[in-house]
Structure formats: C-alpha cells, structure tokens
C-alpha cells in the first residue's frame, strides 16, 4: 500500500462519524440515481416494447409518385393521390411482393407483413361501432408483432383454422358485448359479411384496442374489394434503433414512404424524454448532496489535521502528497459508496417493481415498470465520482497550500 493511501485510511477511520455521514450520502445518491433511472426508462422501454409489438419498427406505405408518371396522369391506378412535403404520393403499396422481396435484401430486416386496412362498421346483436379491419397473414404478422402475447381470451390457433375468424380488440369487444365464439357482421358501404370472434386481444393502447379487427387477408380483400395491393407493409428489425437510417434508405430504394417508430410515436417519446431529463436533474441533486457532504467531511479533517500536515511536510512529504492523501480519502468513501449504492439501487429497483400501479391506455401494466440496465449503474457511479471528486479538490488543495511554518506557529488560516 502506498504511504499516502495508508495515511488516508487512518485519517478516515479516526473520523468515523463524519466519514459515515458522507458515505451514507454517497450511497443514497448512487442508489436513488439508479432507482430513478430504472423507473423512468422502465416505463419508456415498456412503452417502446408495446408500440413495437403492435405496429412494428417500420411501416412502408404510399408509393412516391414518379415525376414522369405524374405527367402521364398516373395511368390506371385506383389508389388515391396525396401531397405531402412537396412530394406526390399514391396511397398504398401496389406491388407488395416486389417491395417485400426488396425489403428482404436489407440485413437488418427480421420480418415483413403486408396489411390491407379499411374502415368498417361492426354490427353485433347489441349495437354498432365503427372500426378498422386489418387483413393480415397471421404467420407473417406474428414475425412483426407480439400479437401472440396480446391474446387475452381464446387462442390464435382457432383463428388460424377459421377462414372467417377474427381477432377483436378488448375495448371494442366489450362495447359490442362480444365473446369468443360470438359472430358479428362487418359492413362496408352496405355490403355485409359475417365473422366469428376467434380470440380477443389487448395491447393496452386504447386507440388500437377499441378500433382494430384482424381478419385473414383474403377475407379482407373480398370485403374491401381490393384484389391487389395492400395499405402498408409492417416491418420488424433486428436493431430497432437503426430504424430511422433504414427507413431513409428504404424510401430511397423502394420509392415508398417509410416511417420509423421513432417518428410515428414522436409525441410520446418526447414526453418520456422530457421526463427522463427532469428526473436526471433531480437525481443529480442527490449526488450533489453527496459531493457537499464529502466537502464538509474533508474540510473538517483538514482543519483537525493541520498539525499532522505540518509533521508530514517536515518529513519531506510534498504538496502533491498532501493533496493525494485527501483525495484518497474521498476516493475510498466514493468506492465504498459506489458499491453499497449500487446494491441499494438494485434492491430499491426490485422493491419498486413490486409496487402495484395499474396503467392502461398507452400500454398495459399492473405494476411499476423498471428497466435493468448496467448503464444506469455506470452513469450513477460516474456522476457521483465527478461530484465527490470535484467537491474534494478544494479542501485537498487547501491542505496542500498550508505552509508548515504557519501551522506550527498557529497562524495558518
């Protein structure tokens, strides 16, 4: 052990109460930092998981209209035109097969599902509700969503085997008083078709659960009278964070608009972002307190140990050694505080995850959501380290500046 570290340890153990004080502040600072980050990002992560599990990472829709073709008058398409950002779009994906095989070329793409969507009126024996029908290929769609985990009644195999089966959102089913096995009518401009509820799903997202009815894509085609083309292609990615870059590239290559989840859910995501920034500020205050406590402890030890400083200096210990002795003390408290704080953080995070907190509407959960992320621990320790060490530099340098002559005469200030 270096002489300076040895001296630092002894100074600390001689001042147990002050040391425990700053130690507990550090433990608290690190622990609270971790718990706060775990809960804040817990909800954000859960939200992201929910939206990715429902609408996938990317959505390819609306063909970008070529300038040439627009001059020719958009030959023979019954898809609608629309203008956005100065670009002309033709609604929907006219040739899903070609687009999907092009999508498969992207190494980050893990699944694709062509979806045909249309507005319908759902008629049950009880009442009518307007809704949207989503025509899907079940197996393809399971690769781009968590639909299999969202089923709350009935099961998917029933749907797979029933040509006129349907998956109805929980809210919609409740409103229409539909149960698994009940039949209902889908009405498109007066054309009626009968379906049977194979299963009821719940995503937790209110807008989805009250409006979507999933049916097999062929049924949707005859219902909506769309023999070719689809409304959009839902795409899943291996690395979800790369969605914006992939989307930009896909838009370029496929000549279809591609919207990543980050853009689609911008409003909610920025709300979460604001929340995590505000919690980061709160949490920095905790570590600031740890820093202040350390400052206080060290300033006190420096005052009490001026004579020892004079003795050390008389024996040839340099200013640098004195600084080091005091910084070591801070580092020791910090190291112990970081380890205990991380433990407190982990235990606290676990305890919080048990707190009941039913939320429904943007996602569905019964308890507090937490995220277990090693980075929170790294961030907490780093923040505490910066605060504590920054706070220690002042007393440590003050101790080093003391002149041995002034100390022994008692005129050091």
């Amino acid at each position, binding site marked *: 052990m270096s*002489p300076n570290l040895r*001296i630092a340890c*002894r100074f600390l153990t001689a001042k147990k109460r002050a040391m425990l004080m700053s130690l507990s502040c550090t433990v608290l600072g690190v622990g609270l930092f971790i718990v706060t980050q775990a809960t804040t990002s817990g909800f954000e992560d859960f939200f992201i998981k929910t939206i990715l599990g429902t609408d996938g990472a990317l959505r390819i829709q609306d063909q970008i209209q070529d300038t040439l073709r627009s001059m020719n008058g958009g030959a023979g398409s019954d898809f609608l035109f629309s203008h956005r950002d100065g670009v002309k779009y033709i609604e929907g994906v006219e040739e899903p097969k070609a687009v999907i095989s092009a999508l498969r070329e992207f190494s980050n793409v893990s699944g694709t599902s062509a979806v045909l969507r249309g507005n319908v009126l759902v008629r049950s024996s009880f009442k009518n509700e307007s809704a949207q029908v989503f025509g899907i290929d079940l197996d393809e769609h399971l690769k781009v969503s968590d639909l299999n985990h969202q089923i709350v009644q009935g099961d998917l195999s029933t749907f797979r085997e029933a040509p006129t089966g349907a998956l109805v959102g929980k809210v919609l089913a409740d409103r229409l008083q539909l149960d698994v096995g009940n039949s209902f009518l889908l009405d498109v401009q007066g054309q009626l078709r009968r379906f049977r509820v194979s299963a009821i799903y719940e995503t937790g997202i209110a807008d989805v659960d009250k409006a979507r009815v999933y049916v097999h894509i062929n049924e949707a085609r005859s219902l909506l009278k769309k023999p070719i083309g689809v409304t959009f292609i839902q795409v899943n990615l291996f690395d979800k964070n790369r969605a914006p870059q992939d989307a930009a590239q896909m838009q370029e290559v496929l000549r279809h608009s591609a919207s990543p989840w980050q853009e689609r859910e911008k409003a909610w995501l920025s709300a979460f972002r604001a929340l995590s920034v505000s919690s980061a500020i709160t949490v920095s205050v905790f570590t600031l307190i740890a820093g202040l406590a350390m400052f206080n402890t060290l300033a006190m030890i420096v005052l009490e140990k001026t004579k020892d400083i004079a*003795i050390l200096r*008389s024996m040839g210990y340099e*200013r640098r050694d004195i600084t080091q002795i005091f910084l070591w003390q801070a580092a020791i408290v910090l190291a112990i505080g970081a380890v205990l704080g991380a433990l407190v953080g982990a235990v606290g995070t676990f305890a919080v995850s048990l707190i009941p907190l039913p939320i429904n509407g943007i996602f569905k959960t019964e308890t507090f959501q937490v995220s277990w992320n090693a980075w929170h621990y790294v961030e907490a320790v780093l923040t505490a380290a910066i605060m504590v060490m920054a706070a220690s530099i002042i007393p440590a340098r003050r101790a080093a500046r003391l002149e041995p002559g*002034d100390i022994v005469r008692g005129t050091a200030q």
Partner: protein
Amino acid sequence: MADPVPLALRCANLHRYLGQGEGRVHVLKGVTFEAQRGQVYAIVGPSGCGKSTLLYLLGLLDQPDGGEIAINGQTMSNSDDAARTAARGAHIGFVFQFHFLMLEFSALDNVMMPMRKLGKLSPAAMIERAHALLGSVGLGDKTHRLGTQLSGGEQQRVAVARALANEPTIILADEPTGNLDVKNSAMVFDLLTRLAKDHGQAVVLVTHNPDIANRCDLVRPMRDGVFV
C-alpha cells in the same frame, strides 16, 4: 582554508518578521550561524528570543525575510517549495517543540513515515530500522502503541527516533529533552551525540537545560533575535 567537505548548515544575516500590521514584530535581527558535521550545537536563550523561529528557518519549514541559508553547500533560501521539501526529506531531521507525533498512528508507523516517503529501504529493512531506533530511545517494548497511548516524554522520544529515520546530515531539535526526566534526557542526548560522532551528523538543539548545554561542543546564546 577551504574545507573539501561543505558545511552541513550555514546561514547568514537571517531576518524574520512575524505578525501583521500593528503587531508586526522583528523577531530575527540578522542571525549568522554555521554547523559542521560531527558537532553538537546548543542554542540557548530566554523564552521568546526567537530560537524556535530560527530553527523553523534552518529546517526549511519557513522562509526568511532576508538573509541566506545553505544546506550541504546548497543555497536553499531562494529555492522553490519542491526543492526545499526534498531537502527536508533527505537531509534534515526535525523534532518539534510541541505536538511531536501523528497521534492516530503507532510509534512504529510514525518512525517509518519518513522512510516510506524517501523509499530508499525495503519494507522489511524499514521495519527493522524503526525497531532499532525505538529501541535506542528506550521504547523497544512500545512500538505498537498509538501516539495517543504514549506519555508526553514517550512521544518526544518517538519524535527523536523519527527525526533520525532517514539518517539526515542535519538534526534540528527544539527542546528534545523538555519533557524528559534526567535518565531519559541523558539517553536522548547521548544518542544524538553518538550519532554526531559516529555518522558525522550535525546536531543543533535548543535547550533550557544548562547541563545539556554544557555537554555540547558549542553553545550559542541568543537574546532578542540575535546571537550574543
């Protein structure tokens, strides 16, 4: 005649003022002093005449307002803190008049402290030397006592042992026998004189004890900031 071995310690025309503003006092008024290796010097004089102040200057713990100090032929009065600190560690052993030890450390730790900083010896050799030094001041059986568990006289003897730790060329001791009984004063004084003779160290001590002073090679009486 030029001496091939430089003087261990030399100071010329040292001035030191203490205090601020109205309370500013001219404590040292042109002190000139030389110490050779192998000699024991006693500085005597009434309380408040400036003995400790002079010793701090000679020990490079304080800086003079005028004059020159040379350690082993090297002028130190104008050098920077790092050079003075290095000289303190390697060439000077200092015994303070009051508060001798770092009280939270054992006697052994206190004696090893200067050795650990200098880092010349192996850890085992340091421990061995520390034990030997404590033995020579009569504390061989109390090496593991903390400073707080030692009497004033015992602390003073540990401080003497510590001042000898790095075999400094100059030993400056401010009343090293102030708290000791006759037997222990004699032991500490004998130790210091033996070192001066055997190892060629220059010993400068401040004392109020006439017996001790008389046994030194040279006595420098001081009054009101100057040698008389």
